[in-house]
């Protein structure tokens, strides 16, 4: 964790309107204020079309806000992107077919001009982190969906980004693989002390992973409530803990309130 910045992400009065200046404009987000502290795990949840992915892309400087500012580690988001502060993982693993698993993990390092020796040392360490040591020489299409997504996470973490942005990374996985991956992600998060902003539409997933769950309403997307989660050290047993159910219920109620309000 970085002592010089006590806030990782500050989203301040952000509006996002898609389209030109016509009647077809869609206001995706309106009046978003959000702060994430270093080392925190924050989930964004909401009905589809609520702009949670848009908010993530605004934080990652893949989109620009129509109004308001996004500050990441006390810098504008654009500068943070140029400084390689972001690791991103999408639902589509985005692995390149033509690169071996290890070469995929090394891609951001190549773009950042790491030496070959440093690159291979790091990719080996990353493969160990996601427990795929034996698969560095394989091609992505030889791996299962869950394994590909772990490679994608390893690649996102390879250059030690200070902020990990994840957009429904486990959305395409079956339930058992998904729970397994959630456990792995929490382990990696603890080991690397990264800050995570995580988009999902799964209530148990948001509850299990997060320190805070941010619930968004749709059209336009606004933050309707924030649910604090304190489950201590989470294990597979946590999923059957009464406290887990209580918080999941709280998130569910918040989401229902959002849907009823439409």
């Amino acid at each position, binding site marked *: 964790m970085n002592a010089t910045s006590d806030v990782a992400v500050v989203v301040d009065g952000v509006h996002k309107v898609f389209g030109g200046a016509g009647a077809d404009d869609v206001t995706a987000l309106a009046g978003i204020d959000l702060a994430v502290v270093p080392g925190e795990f924050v989930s964004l949840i909401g009905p589809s079309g609520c702009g949670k992915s848009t908010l993530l*892309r605004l934080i*990652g400087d*893949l989109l620009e806000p129509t109004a308001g500012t996004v500050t990441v580690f006390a810098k504008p988001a654009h500068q943070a*992107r*140029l*400084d*390689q502060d*972001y*690791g*991103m993982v*999408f*639902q*589509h693993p*985005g692995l*390149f*077919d*033509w*690169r*071996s698993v290890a070469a995929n993990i090394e*891609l*951001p390092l190549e*773009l*950042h001009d790491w030496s070959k020796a440093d690159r291979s040392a790091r990719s080996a360490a990353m493969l160990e982190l996601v*427990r*795929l040591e*034996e*698969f560095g020489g*394989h*091609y992505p*299409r*030889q*791996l*299962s*969906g*869950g*394994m590909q997504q772990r490679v994608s996470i390893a690649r996102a973490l390879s250059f030690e980004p200070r902020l990990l*942005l994840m957009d429904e990374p486990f959305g395409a996985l079956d339930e058992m*693989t998904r729970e*397994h991956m959630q456990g792995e992600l929490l382990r990696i998060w603890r080991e690397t002390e990264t800050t995570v902003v995580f988009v999902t539409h799964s209530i148990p997933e948001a509850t299990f992973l997060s320190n805070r769950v941010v619930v968004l309403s749709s059209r336009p997307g606004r933050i309707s409530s924030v649910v604090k989660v304190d489950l201590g050290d989470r294990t597979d047993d946590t999923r059957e803990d009464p406290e887990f159910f209580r918080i999941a219920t709280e998130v569910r109620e918040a989401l229902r309130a959002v849907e009823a309000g439409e």
Partner: protein
Amino acid sequence: MRLPRLWAAGPPLVVGVVGLVLWEGAVAGFGIQEFLLPRPSSIFTHLLEDWAVISHAGWETGRIAVSGLLVGILLGVLLAVFTTRFRVLHDGLAPLAVAINATPIVALAPIFNAWFGITGTLSNQAVVVAVVFFPVFINTARGLTDVHPAEIELMRSYAAGDWAILREVRIPNALPFFANALRLAAPLSVIAAIVAEYFGGPQDRIGNVITSNAALARYDVTWAAIAMASVIGLVLFAVALVVERVSMPWRFAGDEEITEELERERQT
């Protein structure tokens, strides 16, 4: 190479040989006139008898096809990369190229004779270039632009510029598209060369050997020249397959998918 791949060559070989035998038998059995359909054995005999003429013609036509193929590929790939860099150009040119590609370009051969001269090889080569250019350009341009949006977002999140995205994502992504175009264009180049030769150019080429011998009713020599043309087309097609294999090793890596369950078992 693994055994199953070798076995895969078996059935088509057997069918091919049986086909030739049936052909031979049918011509003899039904008493078909030699000038309508010669026997394979007689075509082969003439291929040997006129080997000097036919091999020379094959060599010259092959050179026209290959040189036109290479220039057409170069132009197609360069323009594809160029238009990807400037989207406005791409949006204007791509539909036009698709439309032109749907027209019979070889029909332009007599026009090209007027433009590039009827006695030299340039007009023949120009026909080959035109025929090869369009499928290569269309497919490569598609491969360069048909990239999953998440892959572009990912590169941008690494602060990668357009050049890095072209080099690391677009070009490798376009390779399979280019390979398909090459499979198409390689045999097309031979067809284009021969059709162009029907209309003009030097008189010692496959196209001219075919037309002049057919005019003299020497159909067995005609067929021998056609056989030579087929061999050139097949060789170019085979080269296209080799290029595909060598340039994309990841496509031909083992097919086994490693499942999550299997992998979890390995760890415990």
